[in-house]
């Protein structure tokens, strides 16, 4: 955008891009862009959810067995962690909107990042690492077990693919949050202009919602509890 800066003669609010006529237009474009991106993401995960559901129907027994190998308590903890992080993300946006100090905004952002990192840490240390030791990762560390029907391997494939892709989105989210912290520290946002915060928030909530679907699909509906 810097090369265009010379072309804009009159002064603009910070963050205003040359191709737009008004700041309002820019705000709407940014929000619409993120929503369209999220639609793409839904289809992206959708392909995998569809495959998962079809294979679950085909290999019900194995998928139930496989889900018993997962650690529900960490899954549940992580669900709570992510929901909290969505709350702090929303608080960060709200603070920017109401013109709170940049310390407050940065504080909320950092707590969000901390919660996101906690999620990843729990997942890595207590779930994936344990799976690795037990030989439950197909293609990487797989110890065939007589107790397992062949379909369990497929369940674990989907488990790692889906949670892995989700974790990748979390890592991207943490990167975005880091940028936001730096931008906030450099006074780029105000109660008039805080759109990057807002659309990053959309992304963060989306990643959260994907987990809200993954958790019951992978951990809970395996007949572990009566009535499910």
């Amino acid at each position, binding site marked *: 955008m810097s090369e265009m800066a010379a072309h804009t003669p009159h002064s603009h609010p910070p963050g205003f891009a040359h191709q737009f006529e008004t700041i309002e237009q820019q705000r709407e474009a940014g929000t619409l862009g993120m929503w369209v991106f999220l639609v793409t993401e839904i*289809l992206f995960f959708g392909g995998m959810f569809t495959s998962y559901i079809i294979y679950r129907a085909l290999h019900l027994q194995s998928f139930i067995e496989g889900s018993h190998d997962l650690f529900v308590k960490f899954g549940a903890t992580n669900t709570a962690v992510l929901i909290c992080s969505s709350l702090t993300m929303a608080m960060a946006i709200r603070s920017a909107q109401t013109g709170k100090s940049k310390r407050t905004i940065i504080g909320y952002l950092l707590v969000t990042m901390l919660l996101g990192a906690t999620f990843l840490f729990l997942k890595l240390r207590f779930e994936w690492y344990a799976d690795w030791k037990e030989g439950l990762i197909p293609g990487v560390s797989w110890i065939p077990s007589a107790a397992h029907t062949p379909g369990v391997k497929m369940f674990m494939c989907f488990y790692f693919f889906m949670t892995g892709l989700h974790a990748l989105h979390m890592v991207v989210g943490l990167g975005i949050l880091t940028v936001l912290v730096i931008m906030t520290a450099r006074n780029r946002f105000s109660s008039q202009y805080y759109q990057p915060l807002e659309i990053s928030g959309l992304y963060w909530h989306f990643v959260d919602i994907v987990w809200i679907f993954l958790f019951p699909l992978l951990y809970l509906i395996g007949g572990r509890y009566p009535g499910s």
Partner: protein
Amino acid sequence: MSTATVDLREAPIESSVNYLNARYGIKSWLLTLDHKRIGLLYLGTITFMFFVGGTAAVLMRLHLIEPQGALFEPETYNKMFSTHGIIMVFFFLVPSIPATLGNFLIPLMIGARDVAFPKLNLMSWYIFVTGCCFAMYGVISGGVDTGWTFYPPYSSAYSQTHVIAFALGIFIAGFSSILTGLNFVVTIHKMRCPGMTWFRLPLFIWSMYATSLIFVLGTPVIAITLALLAAERLLHVGIFDPAVGGDPLLFQHLFWFYSHPAVYIMILPGMGVISELITAFSRKKIFGYTFVAFSSLAIAVISFIVWGHHMFVTGQSIYAGLVFSVLSFVVAIPSAIKVFNWMATLYRGSISYEAPMLYALGFIGLFTIGGLTGLFLASLATDVHLNGTYFVVAHFHYIMVGGAVMAYLGGIHFWWPKITGRLYPDYWARIAAAIVFIGFNLTFFPQFMLGYLGMPRRYAMYPSEFQVLNVMSSAGASILGIGYLIPLVYLIWSMRYGPVASANPWKAKGLEWTTASPPPTENFAEIPVVNEDAYNYPVAEPRHYPDAPGVARV
């Protein structure tokens, strides 16, 4: 008309600052955020990919001159057709019109300074080039032999070739498509200039909008499907391979859920270009604007629910077959509506025959044949016989090459003066258009006959009774190849030696013709204000039929 006005229009534009001469140097291109320059970056990239894929096609056709195969081992032949398919579909046809003409024209046509997200736009090109690099690595390091459809378990467990490099290339290029589509959707929604209402948009914009929807909704599905395929191949885990409990048909469902709409990614922008060309060269308002516009959207929507017609002979249930068959007939209707509206636009027009118009008329004819032969494949009973034969090959080449590539070339010629500020030699352009038309028909018409006779596609050798038709097809392919080389030569020539073009050499309507050729970096000196419908060409005073709807008298 005073001479002063004419002089102004014909005035050389060399002296003025435009997007091409605003800045110089390789860096000014590689770091550009200008949608017009990014469009040209895409043009260069896909032209290269087109000739890579085209070379493979010509070699294939030469090989098939003899029943036993004239040139290669079967393995090499298999790599040829796979490379041809993958490169042409994912690295040429899908980005062809959207990424070049779309990028160049959308902001110009809707009266904007740029697309909504210029940085994202440049990033899309880099992502696309990365994808191309993976594909080219695959080509150079030995190729792939799975066909462009990558059906498992062959692709995941049996093929010894570079499946992963190509799958990764397509995966990456897919994100370029997604981001381009996203950019276009937002641009068309939010960047229109004052007065440019939805129903004043040029039809090219409507078709690009429909295409972008498919980009955004379809591409992620193929991305995840190919990722799963690569994971299965790399880690030897069972997802699609029945030997480990997978379902190979699930891959086909997911693959065609994208790849059928992808067919419309290729043809919809072509239809948009044709609407522009037909109106400009007959100097007429498009006939049935709303019908043409909404038929694009209808095609985009219905295209997502017809994928099963690729799978009529896989043993899917009869009921699924019936549903997909009826939907496939339904998707044919909007295309028919477009063809009839284009014809009605010609009626009582003032038609001239510069090269772009020749391509446009060729498009209508070839697309008609391509579309009608689609009915053979939508009909369950005949599809059983024709599925997997050369009939299918001929059918989709009539759409993809006879349709999409003709429209692409027509569009490139039509907007070439706007893009480069130079005129190409129209005489050579007309000759090239005629050669392409003749070569194309000679190549692909015999393939319809071959298909009905039962020759399966992807055969490196074939029973000798099919030889005559194969030789005809190969002869056509060499003519077609020459037809594609001629524009490459004179278009490059014209960039330096062509006569300087005026702002509006065709006297066409549309905002892109109101600015200079080539346009300035920010497109317009002042953001335009629109107060008329699209294609509002001057009309004569009605004389004989003051009130009657003129066309009803055909």
